[in-house]
């Protein structure tokens, strides 16, 4: 049923000024959460979380993956039910159990994958579902009028009649924001908005955010990027392990403090690997790799027996780098050689030559939902399980059973449909598919995203075992703990090149995080 929206209060002059503005409320408390708890099948994900966002304020929210950021947002926007605690808007407690309640309370959210309809124009998208006009006839003129009013008021530069399909990413985000404002949103939550934006587009987004702030709209800005948070936010809440660690004012935001708050004590994990054997002969060399504007000039060597971690922010081209090596993307320049011989452009030949690739997006690029666990595991190894292209079913079954046992995939039933597996088990299936082949070169892209801690440790074990057997492991990861504890050597990407390399002791999480934002640790405190 279409949400019944309270009609926007008509300003007296009845002119274009239709929606209410909040300049007058700047500084007053807009959103406050108190004592919010949340558990997911036994695991406490949020513990006594308190957030406070004011009108006319950009409030940043930072924290490592799995710190509970997205969970609290999903609770505020009614996607999840909170187990305990209160949410207050303008000081009064509010019940939010679905997205319509959230919208009615003036809360709107812009996720990374936007919820726009490509074939419709900007104006149509903004008013989709609540078109003005009578008797079902879309009041196009009124719609365009109100959109232009919104655009002028917030100083956006966008044509209401442009089809969304023809817009760039930042413009689409502007449309998403306009859509929120058109429903008199008081609070706009942005989740990693700049991850797929160019620097120019990010600049435009920052201007937009400043405009919103001047109009008194509250903004909750979730990001990993320190310099953005420093530049934009009035206050910053840092979360770790499901708890709010602290709230910093603008001038308290210093890289050192922020990173330590995010990471906690610099715990040196006992079983961090020491002393691994390098197999000089098993070498993969990448020289002057270019891919569009994303990878400008990337060169490095990776040796057998070593786990090479690739750090960097989302959008720094790490996935593209790995895909260029694997043959999934056609590189614009430079070359890749393995044991001296150039790596082929055909994925099939590379696999037979000993390459393996665990993709980042399990659902789309890794799993075959309609097939069984067994088939998902053996799908990459038909060459080893068949003679004259006839499958050896016995060998196939044994191969699958062994992988299920080795990598502890649950349920232990070869015929079970992969679609019904949990996230962790799905990842284990995709990983098991490659580990079972004992590849000479294993490329991993964010292998432990969305996997619980227990499974994560197992995955590290298997990867380490493979490295110890002399294989090259290249692991792209945004998980600082993973980089600093699992990888033996870390290359951090920034601006299309390798910005910095860390080995051994120098590889502290803070240093890596800073490098990812293009900061060398010894360059003093001030950020750009």
């Amino acid at each position, binding site marked *: 049923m279409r949400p019944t929206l309270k009609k926007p209060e008509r300003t007296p002059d009845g002119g274009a000024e239709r929606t209410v503005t909040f300049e007058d409320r700047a500084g007053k408390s807009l959103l406050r959460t108190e004592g919010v708890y949340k558990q997911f099948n036994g695991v406490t994900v949020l513990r006594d979380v308190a957030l406070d966002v004011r009108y006319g304020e950009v409030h940043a929210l930072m924290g490592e993956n799995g710190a509970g950021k997205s969970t609290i947002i999903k609770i505020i926007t009614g996607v999840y039910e909170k187990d305990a605690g209160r949410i207050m808007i303008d000081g009064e407690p509010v019940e939010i159990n679905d997205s319509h309640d959230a919208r009615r309370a003036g809360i709107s959210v812009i996720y990374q994958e936007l919820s726009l309809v490509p074939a419709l124009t900007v104006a149509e998208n903004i008013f989709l579902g609540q078109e003005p006009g009578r008797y079902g006839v879309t009041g196009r003129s009124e719609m365009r009028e109100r959109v232009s009013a919104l655009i002028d008021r917030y100083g956006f530069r966008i044509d209401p009649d442009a089809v969304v399909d023809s817009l760039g990413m930042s413009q689409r985000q502007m449309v998403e924001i306009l859509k929120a404002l058109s429903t008199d949103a008081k609070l706009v939550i942005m989740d990693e908005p700049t991850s797929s934006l160019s620097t120019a587009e990010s600049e435009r987004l920052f201007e937009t955010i400043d405009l919103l702030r001047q109009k008194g709209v509250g903004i909750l800005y979730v990001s990993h990027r320190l310099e953005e948070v420093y530049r934009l936010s009035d206050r910053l809440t840092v979360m770790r392990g499901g708890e709010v660690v602290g709230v910093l004012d603008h001038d308290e935001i210093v890289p050192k403090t922020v990173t330590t708050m995010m990471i906690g004590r610099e715990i040196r994990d006992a079983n961090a690997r020491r002393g691994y054997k390098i197999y000089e002969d098993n070498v993969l060399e990448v020289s002057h790799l270019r891919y569009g504007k994303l990878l400008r000039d990337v060169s490095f060597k990776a040796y057998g027996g070593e786990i090479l971690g690739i750090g960097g922010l989302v959008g720094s081209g790490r996935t593209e780098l790995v895909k260029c090596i694997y043959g999934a993307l056609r590189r614009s320049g430079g070359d890749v050689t393995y044991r001296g011989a150039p790596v082929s452009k055909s994925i099939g030949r590379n696999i037979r030559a000993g390459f393996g690739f665990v*993709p980042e997006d399990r659902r*789309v690029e890794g799993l075959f939902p309609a097939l069984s666990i067994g088939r998902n595991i053996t799908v990459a190894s038909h060459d080893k399980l068949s003679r004259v292209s006839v499958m050896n079913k016995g060998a196939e079954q044994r191969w699958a059973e062994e992988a299920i046992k080795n990598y502890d995939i649950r349920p232990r039933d070869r015929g079970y449909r992969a679609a019904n597996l949990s996230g962790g088990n799905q990842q284990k299936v995709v990983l098991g598919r490659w580990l079972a082949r004992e590849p000479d070169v294993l490329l991993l892209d964010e292998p432990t995203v969305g996997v619980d801690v227990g499974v994560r440790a197992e995955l590290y074990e298997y990867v380490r075992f493979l490295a110890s057997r002399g294989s090259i492991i290249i692991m792209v990861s945004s998980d600082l703990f993973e980089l600093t504890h699992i990888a033996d050597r870390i290359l951090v990407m920034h601006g299309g090149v390798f910005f910095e390399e860390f080995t051994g002791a120098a590889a502290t999480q803070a240093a890596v995080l800073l490098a990812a934002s293009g900061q060398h640790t010894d360059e003093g405190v001030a950020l750009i």
Partner: protein
Amino acid sequence: MSVRRFFGGAWGQRIVILALIFAVMAVAEPKFFTGSNASSVLFAISIYGMMACGMLFVVLLGGLDLSVGSMAAVSACIVAQITMKSGYSGAGLLTGIVAAIAASIAVGVLHGLCVTYMRMPSFIVTLSTKYILYGVAPIITGGSFIYYPQEMDSNSAVNFIYSLGNKRIANVPMPVIFFAAVVVIAGFTLASTTYGRRLYALGGNPTASALVGVRVRRDTVAAYVVSSLLAALSGIVLSSVNMQAGQTLAQGYEGSVLMAMIVGGINLAGGEGTISGAVFGALFAGLINNMMTLLSVPSDFQKAVQGAIILVAVCINAYSGRRAGRVKLPAAPAEK
């Protein structure tokens, strides 16, 4: 395997449906259970059964091949025309068959290229080639029909053609033997060869298939070639059954093949379906027609009954899909 899961699974349902049919026929027309009836049902479904095995390769990829009927007609016309022109010589027959096979491969490759390189929807591509082939058939025969001469003795080529369709080995008609052979070979290919494994992967998730080394374009083209090839084979066998070849041979067979697929529980969005499904679908359709004839259902009733049964089968498949916890793949053919 728990009983409930068994009956939830595909084979469980099929046994229930068969049991239902046998029960009805046991009461209404016991002669249903004679050996000759079984052979006549198998004979009736052998032609479009072969086509169904071929089209299954394409359906597994979420595509469709509406041109199988016209392809059968064109191949039959090619064989008939070349054989006739060569005075019904053995060499003429051989060249005819080779030419027909070459033609079907060419059409299959055309379909594959249009679907992969041009990314055109297979529904429209094969609908167009259906019209084109329907028009090409009379151009090949220079008119309408070619009749194979009746008298058998003198001519070895004509004998061979006649035997293709009408000979019986151990009282089993040749078309049924061809059908069985196609089922075994196609079944083996899908169930136990690397190509079969890749097809199921490709149908389920084309992006992931590319990342595990599947050559998406080559395997897709191969699937369309198999479909046209088997359509050609069934066309040649059908023309030898009727000892004639022409434009309207196997007209509308693509409809029966689609029915067999749907009833056989094959997901037209791709990624799911087995040869046993296609065979059961064809068998079920054949049994229904056989039942209707034996129970002398008036012919103007038969089309409505057929439509109703297919609709019920569609509901059963959808329902069992959901109940067995299967993930419903995207409704539209996956080639978007």
